[in-house]
């Protein structure tokens, strides 16, 4: 639900942009696909990685 909402909002923001450059258009859609697919994975799968897990993995030795 959250992923769909913000995906829709992102598309709306992009549609409203005037004078889009071709390079920026490709960049935006690549990022859109990346963020939306990550968001959907995070929303639907409980095992999806979180930043806290990464930080604990990198710095968990520090007590």
């Amino acid at each position, binding site marked *: 639900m959250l992923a769909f909402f913000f995906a829709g909002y*992102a598309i709306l923001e992009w549609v409203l942009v005037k004078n889009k450059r071709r390079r920026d258009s490709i960049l935006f859609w690549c990022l859109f696909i990346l963020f939306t697919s990550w968001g959907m994975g995070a929303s639907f799968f409980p095992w999806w990685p979180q930043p806290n897990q990464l930080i604990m993995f990198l710095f968990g030795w520090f007590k």
Partner: protein
Amino acid sequence: MHTSSFQVFRFASIYMISIPLAFLVTPLITSSGYQGWIALLTAAAINVLLIYCTVRIGRLAPQESWIQFGERIMGKWLHRSVLLLIALWTIYYISLDIEQFTLFYGTVYMKGTPPWFIQLMLGFAIALTARWGFATMIYLSDTLFILLLTGLFFLALMFSRDANFHMLPALLTHHKLDIAARDTLSSISWFGEWFIFLFLAPELTCGKKTLRNLMLANLVVVAGVFIPWLLTLLNFGPYYGGRVQYPILELIRSSSYSGILGNADPLVIGMWLTSMFIHDAFLLYVGTLCLSRVLNFKSGPHVFISLLGGLATILAFQYSRNSTVFQQNINSMAIILFWAIIDCIPIYYILVALFRGQLKTKKLS
């Protein structure tokens, strides 16, 4: 945009105080007890160094954005890596704020409401605030600053009446170095990200008075955390004070005042929530600027607000699946260390600029 140098002071005060005011007091009492003031004052002293380094870097090119001239200090790819790290850090920070507020509001006022609904409202509100632009955030903070100072003043006045001042000598008799060191690092992680004000330029230039303004903001932040910490300790004691999740709320609700003063919590929460929106909206604004620079995106960085804000909201939803683990993680030394590493970004740039002889010249070439 009409600017004045004192706007930096007001904006910095609102930005830095919003999160520690609500969430630092309880962990500090839990781990430090009576000696929490030592950690706060030591962190304030370390902040002086961080602020000095931030302003020193900003003054190398006051009219130019640090996003641009940082490359001339660190080198293109290293600077862009730092910008990418900052962009990811902003998403992470916003997600923590959303989840902490959801836990607070969901457990106190909206018990039957699913967390995703509160997170959606918050995430969307933060994105809209960021979308309004930098000038709007500055003007909002101008108004909120007066309300915040007034609120802190009344807080001190009202809750010192029932405070047990006989506990005060304990502040001097309790002093363990290892606890003080740990909590100093923890306090730095809560209010040490002064490098964020490098992103004020070019809208607000880094001038001669910026150092004074940020130092004053540091004082306001420390006082703003110290007063609720002391009041919570003197009203509830170290044992219960460390177990109260939202101390300011409990202070208001458990006070002997009736009428509007005894039920002022919605008003206080409303003011605090506005400061949190400004805080997170600025983070989102910074994240979009960093990402635009890294990707050389020219069609308007505001487009990324929805993507970054959405990801932060979804991360908050992930945390809400296991709140106990979330609370343990954010108070762990690993997260505190990560935060401290990020907060020291100005020091890395100063060291590199010193090594490259760039600090000798007044302006960066």
